[in-house]
């Protein structure tokens, strides 16, 4: 195909295929399971958090999700170029409060992600199936996610933010900096459960997907990949479905997590949505050893407090408020501070187990401050410094 024709095809697909979570689901509005996770990223403040992936609670403080979400089709992650500044959180089940993520673990083959939550949750985790990919062939499964029953709540979101232009979908006008119009439901409140039925198939059998692209992006062939045929032939997964759990329903009605929608609908770096696009589904049993290892690593890291993140959350002339997140391993916190222009005079302040501290500075005072968490065994590394100045500084 000539390059121009190919580009025309790509842009036509972008224009015509507006995204919706799992196309043609078989059931909506049933109860949202408490283990279904929606994963959010923010660059700092809690209010700017955007959902970018699904996942499943597999233990009291562990959420499994797909690495495919980090292909960042909606530029949510790229907006924060410094990955250390990103903060992740997880919403479980219905519209519950989000739980902070303290650490993210990537499987050695870069196929799956585990999010470690800041604390145990009360929600019951889903059971992870031990069946390997080839043992799952023939098994009926259900893909579970959330869709929105509300209209898109704003008129400006376009993930291709660096492009100029605007577009209109369903009588709603979308402005962006771009000519590429692709509407997705992530920033919108998700409040309906969506289920789609499928069957895991033998990839070498007659039901093998006939999409050429499916093979072209066959990233994992080491036993982690499963292939699906949807019960509804018009169904397919879209890129915003990444991380959706694939479960098998047991005879007693309980479910077991057998797989996950890992990556879908991406071609030449553009988010697309089509039955013929790449679909990468993963058998989660392949990663059971990774779960065990990640938990072991977590045990090692929990002995001593991690490096705290010290923030100035409020400034009003000489009054400053410092804040940091509580680390379970920290029994107490200590601040070291020194005048910016005379730092031989280093002093310390025992903050106890508070996580918010008000400081009153004289107009001519300015300090460099670092924070340290500690317990009877060990200390954290020092935080990165913050600079506090009085009204004249």
């Amino acid at each position: 195909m000539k390059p121009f024709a190919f580009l025309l095809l790509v842009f036509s697909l972008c224009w015509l295929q507006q995204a919706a979570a799992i196309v043609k689901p078989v059931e909506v509005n049933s109860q949202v399971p408490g283990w279904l996770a929606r994963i959010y990223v923010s660059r700092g403040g809690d209010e700017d958090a955007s959902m970018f992936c699904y996942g499943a609670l597999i233990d009291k403080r562990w959420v499994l999700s797909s690495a495919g979400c980090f292909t960042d089709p909606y530029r949510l992650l790229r907006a924060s170029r410094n990955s250390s500044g990103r903060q992740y959180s997880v919403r479980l089940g219905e519209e519950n409060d989000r739980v902070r993520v303290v650490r993210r673990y990537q499987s050695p083959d870069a196929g799956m992600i585990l999010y470690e939550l800041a604390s145990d949750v009360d929600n019951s985790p889903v059971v992870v199936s031990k069946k390997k990919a080839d043992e799952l062939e023939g098994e009926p499964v259900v893909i579970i996610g959330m869709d929105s029953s509300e209209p898109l709540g704003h008129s400006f979101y376009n993930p291709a933010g660096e492009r100029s232009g605007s577009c209109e979908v369903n009588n709603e006008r979308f402005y962006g900096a771009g000519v590429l119009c692709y509407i997705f439901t992530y920033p919108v409140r998700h409040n309906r459960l969506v289920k789609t039925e499928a069957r895991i198939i033998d990839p070498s059998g007659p039901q093998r997907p006939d999409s050429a692209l499916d093979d072209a992006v066959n990233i994992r062939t080491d036993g982690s990949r499963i292939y699906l045929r949807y019960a509804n032939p018009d169904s397919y997964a879209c890129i915003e479905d990444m991380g959706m759990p694939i479960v098998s329903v047991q005879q007693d009605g309980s479910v077991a997590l057998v797989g996950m929608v890992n990556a879908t609908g991406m071609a030449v770096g553009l988010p697309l949505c089509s039955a013929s696009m790449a679909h990468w589904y993963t058998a989660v049993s392949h990663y059971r050893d990774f779960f065990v290892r990640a938990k072991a690593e977590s045990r090692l890291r929990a002995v001593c407090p991690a490096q705290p993140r010290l923030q100035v959350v409020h400034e009003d002339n000489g009054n400053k408020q410092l804040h940091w997140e509580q680390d379970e391993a920290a029994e107490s916190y200590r601040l070291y501070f020194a005048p910016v222009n005379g730092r031989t005079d280093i002093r310390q302040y025992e903050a106890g187990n508070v996580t918010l501290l008000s400081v009153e500075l004289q107009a001519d005072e300015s300090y460099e401050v670092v924070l340290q968490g500690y317990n009877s065994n060990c200390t954290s590394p020092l935080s990165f410094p913050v600079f506090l100045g009085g009204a004249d500084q």
Partner: protein
Amino acid sequence: MSRDVSLGLGSLCPGMVLPRVQYGDAIDGRRPVTLSWLPADSAMGYTLYFTSVPENSEFVGERKFSGDATEFSAQLLAGDRYLVAMRAVSSYCDGPLSTTIELVAP
């Protein structure tokens, strides 16, 4: 406000230790393993943390070394699997935890 200075205390905290692992030949079902590391600036000692990797273990052990230590040797038995990590310690503050290393017997 000038921000071209950083707190002097920060330089008193040790940096990250980078342990390396080396296995010897297994003899009678025992496999010798040696962890070695370069001295970290400002370190007054080192702590090695270890945990076995079965699914339901919660145990974390630790072993402390003096500031001049740069290696540690042990014997692994068949089936042993441990995750270990180190940190350098000083009187003011400890360094960050190293990357974790998996030790596996044959």
